[in-house]
């Protein structure tokens, strides 16, 4: 008591030194509590699902992110076994995870599938770490589950796109190789061959632009275009804007990816001949293209007049004719030409079935 009377007392009655200890302890506890609250707030408000479980797999904590991801409220989850969010066929995964946790190991970015309360599945990446006492004893595990459904969809879409591009590039190489082989015979000169090939490959390139897949669509679908868009694209290099010499009328139908290159090359041959010898070789020429569908077939009437001048019929068969024959054969169609005094008429008939492919 004596000694105690020697301590200076504060108004609270505690000696100053003791009061300092108490205040430090109080401040320390407050700081720890604030840190815990801060941490709890982060855990509670993060987008990831964060939960913990004991070594028997019983859920011991469940944040708001877990509720959002799996659909279970904390009271539906805490105290229940972790298998409420694991599809039955994946239960062995949990045995493996618990075994690793017991060995003190962590599981980092394990991609798997989990199940929501409504029984739907969700792709997740799991990070699981042991939870220890201060003495190092393993009590259970903390688990962070991140929804990777969107990332997986993006990756699958990217893979699909790459496959499609790879397929198309191979097709284009094959087509160009075929064009070169087909052009080889009967070329008048290397320059003429180069010019013809350049314009034909150009026609293929314009056709290819029309059937690019829609990258914004949810599902990557094969591109399609329409007959009119294809005709416009092929004829475009051979006429001025608002060129009254050319008119495209009649029906318009969808044309599928496989038919587009064939049609583009065929129309390109028609148009090239019109520029060299026919309607588009003269200012007062006229080209009308009429499309009609009947009896499961598309009929295209390609009519050229050259302003009162007759259009000369080629005396021999050139590469264009051979390409045309191969193209029509590929489309299982027919083509007929009628050379008249006032011009040329071409009738192309193709089964619709071949056009939508």
């Amino acid at each position: 008591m004596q000694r105690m009377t020697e301590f200076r007392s504060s108004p609270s009655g505690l000696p100053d030194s003791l009061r300092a200890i108490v205040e430090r302890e109080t401040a320390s506890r407050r700081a720890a509590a604030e840190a815990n609250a801060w941490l709890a707030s982060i855990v509670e408000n993060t987008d990831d699902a964060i939960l913990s479980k004991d070594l028997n797999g019983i859920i011991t904590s469940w944040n708001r992110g877990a509720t959002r991801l799996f659909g279970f409220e904390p009271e539906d989850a805490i105290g229940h076994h972790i298998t409420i969010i694991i599809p039955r066929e994946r239960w062995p995964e949990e045995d493996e995870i618990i075994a690793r946790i017991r060995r003190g190991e962590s599981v980092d970015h394990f991609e798997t599938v989990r199940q929501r309360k409504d029984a739907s599945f969700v792709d997740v990446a799991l990070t699981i770490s042991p939870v220890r006492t201060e003495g190092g004893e393993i009590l259970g595990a903390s688990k962070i589950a991140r929804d990777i459904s969107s990332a997986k969809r993006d990756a699958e879409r990217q893979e699909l796109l790459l496959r499609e591009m790879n397929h198309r590039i191979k097709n284009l190489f094959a087509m160009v190789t075929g064009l070169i082989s087909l052009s080889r015979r009967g070329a008048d000169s290397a320059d003429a061959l180069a010019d013809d090939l350049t314009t034909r490959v150009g026609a293929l390139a314009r056709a290819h632009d029309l059937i690019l897949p829609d990258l914004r669509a949810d599902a990557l679908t094969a591109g399609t275009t329409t007959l009119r868009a294809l005709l416009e694209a092929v004829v475009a290099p051979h006429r001025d804007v608002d060129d009254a010499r050319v008119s495209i009328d009649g029906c318009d139908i969808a044309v599928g990816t496989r038919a587009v290159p064939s049609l583009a090359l065929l129309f390109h041959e028609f148009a090239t001949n019109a520029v060299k010898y026919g309607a588009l070789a003269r200012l007062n020429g006229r080209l009308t293209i009429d499309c009609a569908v009947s009896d499961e077939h598309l009929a295209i009437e390609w009519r050229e007049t050259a302003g009162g001048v007759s259009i000369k019929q080629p005396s021999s068969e050139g590469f264009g004719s051979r390409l045309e024959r191969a193209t029509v054969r590929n489309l299982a169609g027919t083509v007929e030409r009628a050379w008249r005094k006032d011009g040329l008429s071409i009738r192309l008939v193709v089964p619709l079935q071949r056009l939508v492919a």
Partner: protein
Amino acid sequence: MDQEIPERASVLIVDDEWLIRAALVDHLQNQGFEVFEAESASEALQMLQAHHQIGVVVTDIQMPGSMDGLALARLIRDSYPPIRLIIASGAIRPTEAELPRDTVFLSKPIDLDGLPSLLR
């Protein structure tokens, strides 16, 4: 299914790439061959049933459908032993063991000038 192969046999070209097929057909027709074409193995089998004069088959390996060119060639070798087989590919180089017996393999692109001598 034995059949007599004429000296200048008719040729069946099997390739799903129509312009490659067209170039071969055009070149061989110009050399005087009768040429048939098919864009798949199943279409090729229909052609063989319909045109008994076919004595040579030139087939690509990679084709859509349930049967590729190698499987087609094996089937032809078993069902039509006298038919001469030429397998071509730019992507795959089959081993000797994968090729049916008496089969010629050509790398793509096919040398058009050298092809007719293989067909006669």
